[in-house]
């Protein structure tokens, strides 16, 4: 689109706030894989993940002027994506979609681990919503309990017990040795 290539996210953000869609596309190219991965694990369903990623970036475009640079842009985007997923789950049917065979989930990156890759993804997708959300944020994406609790709108205690529950369910589903 003949736009400048901005080496720093800050430059792209400033340009995008001014309405430069090409600058926003550069941001999208950089951060979309992370956001799509997050949505995919949170929803456990590829189509929902696509919808949520789309909605999250549209919401980000609209809210860009309010981004205050106090946090990382990726953190800010992740928060928007999590909110979008939670709103979507509250609204519609999706609740049982995740229990169906999970189509289109990627295989794990390291087949050398000897793990049955897709089984892990399926087992995570089949977890109850609350347990899955906490496991994805804390167990996969490295959120602290405080960060996950704030993002999900639950207490830290709930967050910890949901993680414990998720790990127990996964251990049983994958027939792993208890720790």
């Amino acid at each position, binding site marked *: 689109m003949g736009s400048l290539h901005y080496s720093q996210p800050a430059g792209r953000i400033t340009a995008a706030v001014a309405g430069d*869609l090409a600058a926003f*596309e550069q941001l*999208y190219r950089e951060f*979309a*894989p*992370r956001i*799509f*991965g*997050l949505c*995919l*694990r949170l929803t456990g369903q590829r189509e929902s993940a*696509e919808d949520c*990623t*789309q*909605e999250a*970036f*549209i919401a980000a*475009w*609209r809210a860009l002027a309010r981004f205050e640079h106090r946090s990382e842009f990726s953190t800010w985007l992740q928060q928007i994506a999590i909110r979008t997923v939670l709103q979507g789950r509250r609204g519609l049917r999706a609740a049982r979609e995740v229990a169906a065979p999970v189509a289109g989930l*990627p295989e*794990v*990156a*390291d087949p*050398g*681990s*000897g*793990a049955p*890759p897709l089984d*892990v*993804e399926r087992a*995570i997708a089949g977890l109850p919503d609350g347990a899955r959300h906490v*496991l994805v944020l804390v*167990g*996969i*994406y*490295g959120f602290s309990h405080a960060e996950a609790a704030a993002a999900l709108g639950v207490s830290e205690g709930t967050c910890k017990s949901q993680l414990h529950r998720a*790990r127990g369910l*996964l*251990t049983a589903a*994958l027939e*792993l*040795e208890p*720790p």
Partner: protein
Amino acid sequence: MNDRPPRHDRPPSLDDLLAAIPRNVEPPARLWREIVFGIARRQRQTRYLALAASMACAVLAAAVIWAVLRAAPESRARLPLVATRTAPLATAPSFAEPGDAKYLATRASLQATFRERLALLDPTTRTRIEASLAVIQRAHEDIRRALAAAPADPLLQQLFESTWHEEFDLYVHVVHATQPTAAKT
């Protein structure tokens, strides 16, 4: 916590399995196009909302004029007899489009009568009517500018005609409400 590489000298633990899950997943290529489409659609909706708000103000302004004139029937009684240049109008005539020559002529004539009648009203009523008319005209101008950028937009065309007729109706209303009646004298 999650960056620990999987160990191969024992069965994988749950943490090993979680660590092996890729954080980044490439979204489908079409997603960016859909996002651009979504952004454009939201912007259009926002613009429509602003114009609709403008229209709502215009309608409200017309309603205010109607209420003002109803609440001040004495203004009609105090009016001297003025020759009306237009034929009596029961309702605003319906023309296919504002550009119609007959419509424009009627409108110009009606507008002249409206100005004459307005000058005869008491200052408070006149001020209110003028303020309401300004709201309608501002809405009309907003929509005209939006239409210049998107001339084929059917909703904008419809809104444009609505404000145009809204202004016309206002003239009709004021002229009617201030019609001098010989019976009152």
